[in-house]
């Protein structure tokens, strides 16, 4: 186990160094600040997606569902668009970004607690129905977003444009000051409760009979997931399969049911894939912003592999 973490840590350091150093020319004062900000943002995104995915999979007691597959980030973007639609582009852009984010976060938390809280409560017997419903929800939220965007005045439309696709290249850095403490707090709470998640992972009945206040912990977990997903979506946009890719690799190499090591390894893997991948794609291959597409491609393959394997067992 400790060897795995040594290797992961080393790879993480290597990715970060590569990201900061590769192709750097000129004034280091500028480079450090410019790339450093981006690095922090990417690390935030990587951490939130990793923790949120692992947590969500524990809450739903399976390793295929992820919050993004269930349409969480599509819902976030829908709310953002709906806000612009109701407030108008001008009203929206005069709103302080912190207030905007807080507003969107509240809306998303409420909606996801209602929507997914009830789904998780009753529908878990039929995993594939859940998955399909989630996927279709995602498509529905996306179509509604496009519809609203089309109904917005073309001038105001430019405010939201581009938020429908993930891009690790154009990270929204204005939110870093707000996102950093939020993500850290969420992760700290998730880490603090790691033994609770270990019990939750045993399933609803076992957890209750072991004396856990299941409903309360479920709600706390869902709230954490929502906050983390909202943060990552606000920073880079929706990424459907990235979390699945990360959590699948993490389960595979740690081979444990303890949330401590799983959280740690998934965060490290997530940072390696995002930061290292971005360094390679941007600086070595010169492929611009396509890392998100490749990650989605790989994640999609992992997803198919997982459901096909599950069926055969």
């Amino acid at each position: 186990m400790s060897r795995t973490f040594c290797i992961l840590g080393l790879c993480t350091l290597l990715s970060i160094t590569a990201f900061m150093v590769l192709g750097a020319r000129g004034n280091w004062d500028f480079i450090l600040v410019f790339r450093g900000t981006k690095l922090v943002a990417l690390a935030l995104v990587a951490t939130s997606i990793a923790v949120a995915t692992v947590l969500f999979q524990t809450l739903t007691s399976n390793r295929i569902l992820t919050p993004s597959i269930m349409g969480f980030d599509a819902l976030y973007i829908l709310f953002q668009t709906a806000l612009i639609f109701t407030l108008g582009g001008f009203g929206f852009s005069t709103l302080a970004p912190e207030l905007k984010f807080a507003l969107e976060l509240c809306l998303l938390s409420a909606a996801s607690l209602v929507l997914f809280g009830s789904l998780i409560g009753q529908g878990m017997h039929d995993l594939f129905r859940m998955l399909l419903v989630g996927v279709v929800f995602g498509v529905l939220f996306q179509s509604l977003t496009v519809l609203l965007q089309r109904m917005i005045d073309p001038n105001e439309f430019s405010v939201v444009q581009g938020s429908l696709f993930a891009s690790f290249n154009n990270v929204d850095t204005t939110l870093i000051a707000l996102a950093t403490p939020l993500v850290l707090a969420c992760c700290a709470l998730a880490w603090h409760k790691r033994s609770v998640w270990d019990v939750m992972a045993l399933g609803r009945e076992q957890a209750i009979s072991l004396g856990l206040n299941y409903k309360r912990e479920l709600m706390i977990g869902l709230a954490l997931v929502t906050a983390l997903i909202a943060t990552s979506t606000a920073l880079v946009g929706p990424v459907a399969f990235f979390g699945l890719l990360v959590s699948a690799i993490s389960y595979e190499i740690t081979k444990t049911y303890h949330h401590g090591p799983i959280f740690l390894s998934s965060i490290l893997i997530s940072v390696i894939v995002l930061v290292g991948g971005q360094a390679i794609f941007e600086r070595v291959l010169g492929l611009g912003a396509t890392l998100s597409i490749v990650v989605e491609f790989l994640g999609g393959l992992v997803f198919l592999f997982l459901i096909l394997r599950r069926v055969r067992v």
Partner: protein
Amino acid sequence: MRPHLAPLQRTSAFWPIVLAILLVGLVAGSLVTGAANVSALDLFRRGESGDILLVSRLPRTLATILTGASLAVAGVIMQTLVRNRFVEPATTGTGQCAALGLLATLLLVPGAPLLAKMAISSAAAFAGTAIFLALVRRLPPTQPLLVPLTGIVYGGIVGSISIFIAYENDLLQYISVWMNGEFSGVLQGRYELLWASGAAALAAYFYADQFTVAGFGKDTAHGLGLSYRTVMIAGLSIVALITSFTILTVGMLPFVGLVVPNIISRFRGDNTKETLPLVAVLGGVLVLASDLIGRLIRYPYEIPAGTIFGVLGTGVFLWLLFARPTRRV
């Protein structure tokens, strides 16, 4: 059971009549809706208004009906062949493969004539759907919902290959045009391929019974004296042709082929040969209605019919998912 069946038979003309009235009303509405003020009677007069009708409004109306009808029929074929209610070109990767084929022609043989483009994209759609079928055959029949789920993700994977290639070659615009069905570009001379799509749907009508038999599986089909392979190839070809014709002319309209046959089968059962005309008409009606809503909701701007249908279609899809609990779908 007899007396119970009687009222059903008496009212069997009900749905066709309702659909016909709806269709006529929507066609009239579609002809008079638009930025220029035209009345339907202008069709028979000479002059500018008549030209608008002949060159723009009428082709657009016909294009929507043809697209809706043929996509709905393609959905029925897929559902019969795969024996799963939740498949259609958009949930089996067919559309994404057709788009990938088109992208390949655009990059490798940029000056290819329309016919060559069509052939390559249909072939890609055919191959992609065949791969999907091979994939699905390994799934257990006890998990019907796994089929559309696999298909949607498979389509997403193929789509991400297209997006990657398109992004690196600055062709992203093309992909989004192909994947978002929209009729505002339809003019006389630019939609006629859709008639071929309609013809393919008509061909499906004559094969309908064979599709049903093939849907029972290879052994049953052979036992009943049917060449399973031939019928499968015929069915897949029709689906591939309809999909690529539609994508090239107006773009993909997801969920038409899924929603329409399901609605019809709820009310009229599963006799494919009998319900296929109804499916085609309802497909035309719903797509025309979506197009009309898209033209009116933010008049005089337009919202693509595909977007409107995306909202309505996914809504109906969710309803179908919840309304049909775990019994066989």
